């Protein structure tokens, strides 16, 4: 974007049209960016460092913040950090003494300058305390998507696709400008998108068809689609060669539900139709059977903890056959009764999906011929997190797999990785591993290596093997468990200690997580909080020090862009863009990079800090084969000097040493890009090149890992994760999510019948990941959007309750109540209520006066409502009571 400055004041935001033809949205920024001017000059900003004078923390305690100098603030913090270093970075419970929490989706990383380098130089940091990670993001998709096809996020190959089945994926609201542009172009091209969700979101509005499915029953719909494809359509409508050659479908499964393996090599076996025998999967010159039951003369299987069985003349069937048999029970009629979409409609959608799949067709991309399968299935938050999410992400991936549309042009593709390295190139992270699949770093579950003692307060390496152990893994673990266990640990689990110091930035867990009243009290129990504060808010209300970082228009950072990244960020260029200060920071606000450098210096870890920057903790390594712009480890660098070197390093790297541009060049030009092959949007060529198969449909490894995890947990006397362990099925069983919820309500001591409606949430472009609830402009323009600040309710349901537009109501869940005004709509299921966004503020200026309701207050944090990846979903059983008619 560009910023117009008049008399030293930022006064207008404009798109950066220099990026036309480079940026997929041609340089346009979304509505949130236009709030950056008000964000800068918001009179409620914290503009000077502050320290707390009231030692008591709580919602009803006035923090008594008083202004202090930067020197005092930084010395106070660094004295504490030095003391921690002297005590030891890990406490007696084996947990890091310093914790840090950042907000949504990696966005804060683009604003915190070189602070990641400080964190890296510090040593072990506990990122477990989430601000909504796992329940507010597409959690199961993150984890399983990466596992199956290096897809931390999954999207349609929109420029090439022709048919999209979208279960609640609200790309028009949350996909960013690139998604909006691409899908608008797709609509003009005649792409049909069927949006399946309980209410008519913006995406449903912009789709060809809307199917109002009952909340959290998407798994039934998808299982029925799979059933129809495999039991009611011809095999020739599927991509049989893809299944045979690129997936684990032909692998033979034995009586224990494990792959049958060649005894010596332990390679999974397939059936060779020519020799009529079972041979290792990578044997050349064979004709592999995709389906069938066979007798295998000699094999082993390897179960949990190396529990090996040996077989002779054993019955086996292929993974594909097991899939077909497994899906026989999931009929469209059964699904219709569950999800409230007619069986005929499910059949029609499936038939249309198959019709559009173009089996056998090819397309040329960057000189290479690839399969062309223009059908995609996308999932949204609430579908791909919480109970039932495993079913859904598996089913979606299998739907793609069956027609060969996984990771090919037109189909369902991934965008980036966060658990596998390198994060900047997901294709490079796909390397051959065991059994013909990609090597995937699961957290160990064997007796020797399992993390019996948690290394972080959400116990991600202990409880969630699939989340791995990258720099992002902990923040992607079951982050609400950190909060829950700190308050109330379950049986045979040590109560986690609180960290000695907790950094928090661009994050407000007291608002953005579940059970927010209780969560705020948990935040209050933190011994020492350093909050990078934009305005006072419900979390930094409990802080000890507030630090005003320079915001969007006031600071410097070089940010990677392009290639493939996050939702529909699929470019034909890659490079870097500079955020430069349009104006001087207001008040005493300082650039985050300066803050990070000062903290590093005062804490005595400057060398580690500079080394981390050199390695790329600021976004770009400063040294490569072409260049060396490294920082000298023991020198204190100014902000501009650091970024100047980063600019030079980046341009040298991207241009293979042919161009070097510093900060001054970027100040004039804004960004630097080089071409990025569209071919690299797809993982398929990499799979072919390395002769790897997608680990689908049968989840033999997860099944085994689940057994091992069960063994480990039971050995410790831990049975409170047993329900979650049931998800480690090789082929998922349909999870009755709504019944799970009802049983959870009963366990809370309440009667589900007293809460007859389902409350869900939805996002809006104006607020999603925006950190902008206190921006008046956003509220003003949002009032044009149906449902803003309201509880969306079906018109007939409302009339039956005697409700009119804007009447006040009270929503009650088993744990809390909230009030809000209703907005009547025909675009909502009669049994469902929808609350957009996350409000309910009581401290954030401007936002607190809006008096908007929030689902978060009503949603419990509960193990019963947590799936095996540690995620939950925005769905709550509620009752609704009219309170007051609108004035």
């Amino acid at each position, binding site marked *: 974007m560009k910023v117009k400055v*008049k*008399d030293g*004041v*930022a*006064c*207008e*935001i*404009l*798109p950066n*049209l220099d990026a036309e033809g480079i940026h997929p*949205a041609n340089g*346009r*920024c*979304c*509505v949130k960016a*236009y*709030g950056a*001017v*008000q964000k*800068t*000059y*918001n*009179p409620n900003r914290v503009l000077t460092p502050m320290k707390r004078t009231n030692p008591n923390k709580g919602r009803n305690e006035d923090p008594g913040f008083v202004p202090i100098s930067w020197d005092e603030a930084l010395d106070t913090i660094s004295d504490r950090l030095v003391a921690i270093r002297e005590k030891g970075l890990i406490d007696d419970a084996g947990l890091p003494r310093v914790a840090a929490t950042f907000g949504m989706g990696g966005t804060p990383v683009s604003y915190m300058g070189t602070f990641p380098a400080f964190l890296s130089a510090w040593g072990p940091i506990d990122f477990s305390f989430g601000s909504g990670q796992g329940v507010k993001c597409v959690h199961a998709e993150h984890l399983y998507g990466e596992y199956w096809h290096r897809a931390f996020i999954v999207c349609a190959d929109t420029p090439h696709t022709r048919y999209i089945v979208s279960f609640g994926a609200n790309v*028009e*609201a949350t996909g960013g*400008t690139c998604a*909006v*542009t691409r*899908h*608008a*172009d797709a*609509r*003009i091209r005649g792409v049909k998108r069927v949006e399946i969700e309980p209410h*008519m979101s*913006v995406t*449903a*509005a*912009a789709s060809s068809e*809307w199917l*109002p499915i009952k909340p959290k029953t998407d798994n039934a719909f998808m299982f029925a689609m799979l059933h129809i494809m495999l039991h009611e359509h011809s095999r020739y409508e599927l991509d049989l060669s893809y299944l045979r050659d690129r997936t684990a479908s032909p692998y033979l499964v034995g009586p224990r539900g494990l792959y049958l393996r060649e005894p010596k090599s332990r390679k999974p076996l397939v059936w060779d139709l020519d020799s009529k025998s079972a041979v290792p999967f990578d044997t050349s010159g064979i004709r592999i059977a995709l389906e069938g039951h066979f007798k295998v003369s000699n094999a082993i299987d390897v179960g949990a903890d190396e529990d090996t069985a040996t077989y002779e003349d054993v019955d086996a069937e292929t993974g594909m056959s097991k899939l077909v048999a497994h899906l026989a029970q999931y009929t469209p009629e059964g699904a219709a009764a569950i999800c409230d979409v007619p069986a005929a409609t499910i059949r029609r959608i499936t038939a249309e999906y198959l019709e559009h799949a173009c089996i056998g067709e090819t397309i040329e991309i960057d000189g290479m011929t690839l399969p062309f399968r223009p059908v995609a299935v996308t999932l949204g938050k609430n579908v791909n997190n919480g109970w039932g999410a495993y079913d859904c992400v598996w089913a979606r991936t299998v739907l793609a797999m069956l027609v060969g549309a996984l990771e090919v042009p037109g189909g369902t593709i991934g965008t980036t990785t966060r658990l596998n390295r390198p994060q900047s190139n997901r294709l490079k992270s796909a390397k051959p591993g065991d059994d013909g699949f990609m090597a995937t770093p699961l957290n160990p579950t064997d007796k020797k290596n399992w993390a019996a003692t948690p290394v972080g307060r959400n116990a991600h390496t202990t409880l969630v093997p699939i989340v791995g152990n990258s720099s992002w893994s902990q923040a992607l673990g079951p982050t609400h468990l950190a909060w829950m266990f700190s308050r109330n640990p379950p049986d045979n689990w040590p109560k986690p200690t609180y960290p000695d110091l907790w950094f928090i930035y661009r994050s407000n867990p007291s608002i953005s997580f579940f059970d927010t009243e209780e969560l705020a009290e948990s935040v209050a129990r933190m011994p020492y909080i350093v909050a990078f504060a934009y305005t006072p808010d419900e979390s930094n209300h409990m802080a000890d020090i507030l630090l005003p970082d320079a915001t969007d228009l006031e600071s410097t950072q070089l940010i990677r862009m392009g290639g493939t990244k996050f939702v529909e960020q699929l470019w034909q260029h890659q490079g870097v863009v500079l955020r430069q200060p349009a104006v001087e920071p*207001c008040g005493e606000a300082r650039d985050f990079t300066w803050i990070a450098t000062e903290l590093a210096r005062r804490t005595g870890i400057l060398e580690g800090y500079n080394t981390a920057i050199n390695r790329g903790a600021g976004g770009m390594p400063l040294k490569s084969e072409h260049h060396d712009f490294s920082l000298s480890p023991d020198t204190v660098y100014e902000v501009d000097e650091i970024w100047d070197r980063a600019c030079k390093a980046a341009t040298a790297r991207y241009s293979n040493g042919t161009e070097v541009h510093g900060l001054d060049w970027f100040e004039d030009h804004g960004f630097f890009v080089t071409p990025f092959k569209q071919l690299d949007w797809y993982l398929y060529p990499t799979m072919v090149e390395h002769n790897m198969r997608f680990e689908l449909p049968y989840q033999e490894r997860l099944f085994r890992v689940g057994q091992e995890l069960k063994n480990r947990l039971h050995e410790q006397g831990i049975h409170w994760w047993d329900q979650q362990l049931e998800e480690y099925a090789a082929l998922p069983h349909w999870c009755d999510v709504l019944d799970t919820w009802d049983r959870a309500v009963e366990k809370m001591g309440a009667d589900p019948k007293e809460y007859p409606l389902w409350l869900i949430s939805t996002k809006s*472009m*104006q607020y999603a990941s925006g950190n902008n609830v206190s921006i*008046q*402009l956003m509220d*003003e*323009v949002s009032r*044009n*959007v*149906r449902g803003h600040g309201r509880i969306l309710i*079906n*018109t*007939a349901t409302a009339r039956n309750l005697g409700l009119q537009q804007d009447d006040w109501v009270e929503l009650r869940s088993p744990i809390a109540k909230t009030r809000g005004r209703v907005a009547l*709509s*025909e*675009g*909502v*299921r*009669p049994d469902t209520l929808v609350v957009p966004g996350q409000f309910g503020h009581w401290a954030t200026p*401007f936002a607190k006066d809006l008096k908007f309701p929030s689902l978060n207050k009503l949603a419990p944090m509960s193990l019963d409502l947590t799936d095996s990846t540690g995620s939950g979903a925005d769905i709550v059983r509620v009752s609704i009571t009219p309170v007051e008619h609108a004035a």
Partner: protein
Amino acid sequence: MTRYVMVADLRRCVGCQTCTAACKLANGTPPGVQWRRVLDMEVGEYPNVQRVFLPTGCQHCANPPCLDVCPSGATQQRNDGIVNIDYDVCIGCANCAVACPYGARYVVDEQQYAYGDAPTDDEVVNFNPDYVGVASKCNFCVDVIDEGVAKGLTPGEDPEATPRCVNSCISGAMSFGDIDDPESTVSKLLGETQHYRLKTNEGTCPGFYYIWDGEEL
């Protein structure tokens, strides 16, 4: 002849309000005043529902009802079809506002600020006291158009000479240009799509077209 018109492709619009916000910043309009605004409309009954996003604002009609009723002559119609307001002349009687079937005009009696009683720094710079006490509305960014034309640029083709809402539109829904020029983007777009205008029974002949489908087959 030149007649500038706006085209909104309803197939593309997602109601994100980016144009609403861009217009507000470009023109320094006070809180509540939205010269460009996108409506969020629902049609039908559950489950047969549609939701449409409709960019609105001044339609720059060929027969503008606001023009005749204006007692001061502040509302003027240019040769290129743009209906403009001379804020130095307007007395704020709001006769134009009650005459406009599209609700495009705003009259603000006293300056309000986004946060309380005092202006923020950007409001101090952006605040135009000429907008208080008078009628105001979208003027197709007439200053930008005039400056652009003076430089030899073509409004609707060259972003520098094009209204801010069009430049800001993420989905490519908004287009602008001279409908009397058969080679303009808008002329070609309208030639290959099906479209309508609003409240045409009022005899206003609006200069705002709404596309709803591709070419009729």
